[in-house]
């Protein structure tokens, strides 16, 4: 992420959270936090607790974020934000927390006098992590048609082309799902599982080989000892944790999307 991308990202984050942007200049931003966002980011639970008890006037903080120290004026005092800074990762995490679940409707302008049927989709964005003593991730976005069971990949990208709204538009009605959202999640999980099983698992085999090798060394080390004892068990567990190949699937966010027939092709 380049510095200007970070700047743009921050702007959108605070916008989406209804914070007033007091200053937006090259290299820095000044933001008036809302009460909600102050609680989310500033980590001062005692202050908020105290306010609740005393009924005082809430005074959320102002935040100055410097996205490019060479562009920002020298006298600006604030936090320098770059890709590794804890504040940015806190905001990343907060974005995720605030938008974990969603329900949206396609805003389709139907010809006057007609009613539009919107079909239910389950949209899931997932992270698949392949882990042994090393790790890599894969992002997947999957949509499941909750009536006919059709499954679509890169679902999120397709949604980006549509106009979506949180309230059901006039002259539209939703069809009830045949597949319950809960079992829809399981369908997606099973689908991914079978996809992953079909993949090439050389990385896992190699990890197991490394594991086996170290295990043999360990056993050889303790072969003279009559009583292998706790440290042997310890080392065994450590090796398992170090090498055992695993895949973790976790849902980043997702929700229900009511879309027209033509929306997803």
């Amino acid at each position, binding site marked *: 992420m380049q510095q200007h991308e970070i700047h743009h990202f921050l702007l959108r984050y605070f916008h*989406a959270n209804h914070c007033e942007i007091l200053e937006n200049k090259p290299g820095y931003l000044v933001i008036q936090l809302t009460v909600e966002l102050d609680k989310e980011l500033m980590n001062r639970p005692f202050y908020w607790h105290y306010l609740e008890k005393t009924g005082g006037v809430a005074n959320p903080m102002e935040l100055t974020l410097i996205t490019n120290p060479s562009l920002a004026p020298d006298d600006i005092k604030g936090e320098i934000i770059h890709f590794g800074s804890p504040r940015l990762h806190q905001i990343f995490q907060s974005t995720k927390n*605030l*938008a974990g679940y969603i329900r949206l409707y396609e805003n389709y302008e139907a010809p006057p006098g007609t009613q539009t049927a919107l079909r239910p989709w389950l949209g899931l964005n997932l992270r698949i992590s392949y882990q042994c003593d*090393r790790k*890599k991730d894969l992002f997947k976005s999957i949509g499941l048609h909750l009536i006919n069971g059709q499954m679509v990949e890169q679902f999120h990208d397709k949604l980006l082309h549509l106009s979506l709204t949180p309230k059901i538009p006039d002259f539209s009605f939703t069809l009830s799902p045949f597949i319950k959202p809960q079992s829809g999640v399981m369908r997606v999980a099973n689908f991914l599982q079978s996809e992953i099983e079909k993949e090439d698992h050389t990385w896992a085999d190699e990890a197991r080989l490394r594991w086996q090798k*170290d295990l043999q060394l360990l056993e050889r*080390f303790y072969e*003279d000892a009559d009583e292998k004892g706790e440290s042997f068990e310890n080392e065994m567990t450590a090796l398992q944790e170090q*090498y055992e190949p695993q*895949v973790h699937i976790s849902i980043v966010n997702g929700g229900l999307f009511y879309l027209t027939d033509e929306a997803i092709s």
Partner: protein
Amino acid sequence: MTLQINFDATWQDEFQNRIDNDGPWGNWDLFKLTIEVENQTVIPAFDGLQVDKHLSNLTPLPHQLEVAEQVVENMNGKAILADEVGLGKTIEAGLILKEYMIRGLVKKALILVPASLVSQWAIELNSKFFIPAVAQKKSYVWEQCDVVVSSIDTAKREPHRSLVFEQNYDLIIIDEAHKLKNNKTKNYEFVQSLKKKFCLLLTATPIQNRISEIFNLVSLLKPGHLGTETSFYEKYKKNARSLDDDEGLKELVNKVMIRNRRQDTGIEWTKRHVETVPIHFSKEERALYDAISSMHREGNWMTDSQFSLMTLQREACSSREAVFYTLRNMLKKQEQPSVAFQQKIEELIGLVENIQQNAKAQKALEIIQQINDKVIIFTEYRATQLFLQWFLKQHNITSVPFRGGFKRGKKDWMRELFQNHAQVLIATEAGGEGINLQFCSYIINFDLPWNPMRLEQRIGRIHRLGQKNDVHIYNFATKDTVEEHVLKLLYEKIHLFEKVIGELDDILTKLQFGSINDHLIDIFGQSASEGEMRIKMDNLTSMIEFAESVKEENQHAAT
């Protein structure tokens, strides 16, 4: 073999909740941002380092990044980092820790370092790597903080010990790991019983001196890598000196150890200027020295009193205070001192009292005033240290003392004082292992340590990464004393200062002469007289000269 696939179900439970309660639902803009963030933070490959993208306050050097990559990709996260002093082992360890944290392979990490370095480690991890490392001060820290820095001595004691064992650490880093070379110690046992998923052992001294040390250290990291204790010692002689004796073993060790040398790094180091400063005794000082030197001709009463004549000679070259202190102790230790002994001591004390000024201190003062910048003075003796502090104060020069025995906080504080307020730091030990003083570029060796490794450590405090200036080292040697002989024999003949010890050791071990350090301890520790010392020293010198000629030949052959 089937692969274990875990599906995290936490999301869907809450999903059902939201459906049942008709919300609350997230905001579409934030939802989209989340996916953008996700695409930024997903790491699509096993290979390569992510860490450099996350650092803004630090530009790692190429050799440091190489080490990190090597450890993660080829050594499976278990390694001995054995770079020479001053190449930034802390940075390398920080890079590896950070890389694992970014990839989500490490959440909890335990960093065990000497007590004097605890806060420095915590500060560096926080400021350079944005790793929220906490110095262990209260016992709740073990449970509540993910990255904890502590000393082994604290961690191994109750109530900490049990708490440490309750934690599930993903990575353990141990600094100054050469202290764990003996597998019979409590510290070794403690580290051995820790669960080590990923583990880094940091050491500055090449562990090539004794084969048993290598075995113990490697077995701590990766038990079985060098076989069992019995099989190992059957194969290799227990007292074999060097790793290089056996190519196979060397190769095996290199699988778990990385060692960069200064010359491998391709970094332009600032220069070292070494100057020998001859000191001339005053008449009174000479009288004391001669009186001490003549003692061994006067019967054998000294052997009973268990002190080495050489110690006194060396002290006489340092300060009258140092001599006085030892003499007084000698007298105290004897329960029933003979009259002759008492008389002799009193005679010497008389000579001590005659001395009005310290020739070395005068010279030091002159140099300090001339430099007009920060200076570190090293001395072997506490009495000299105290004297120098007093002496400099008389001449309006601010100084702070530094000793290995200081507690962690005091060391930090003294370093701070020296950096910001005082001109001179007077240290009795290179003991501040890992204490970095690269903001200073002058060292006065008020007296020389008999062990050249210690000397290298002294210089290593300032001649390290981050040193911007050339480094100046002044070696004081009093004319016509044992000190001058040593300096001549040892430091000048071998050109020790211009070299890094490791290099010489390499040559010597290749020729199976053993480690230079062992030789020196033998020469200076065991010799009964200066004569014996000189003969042994000559012997060593010729060995070294031979070794160097071999090295040159090799180089010619190579070109």
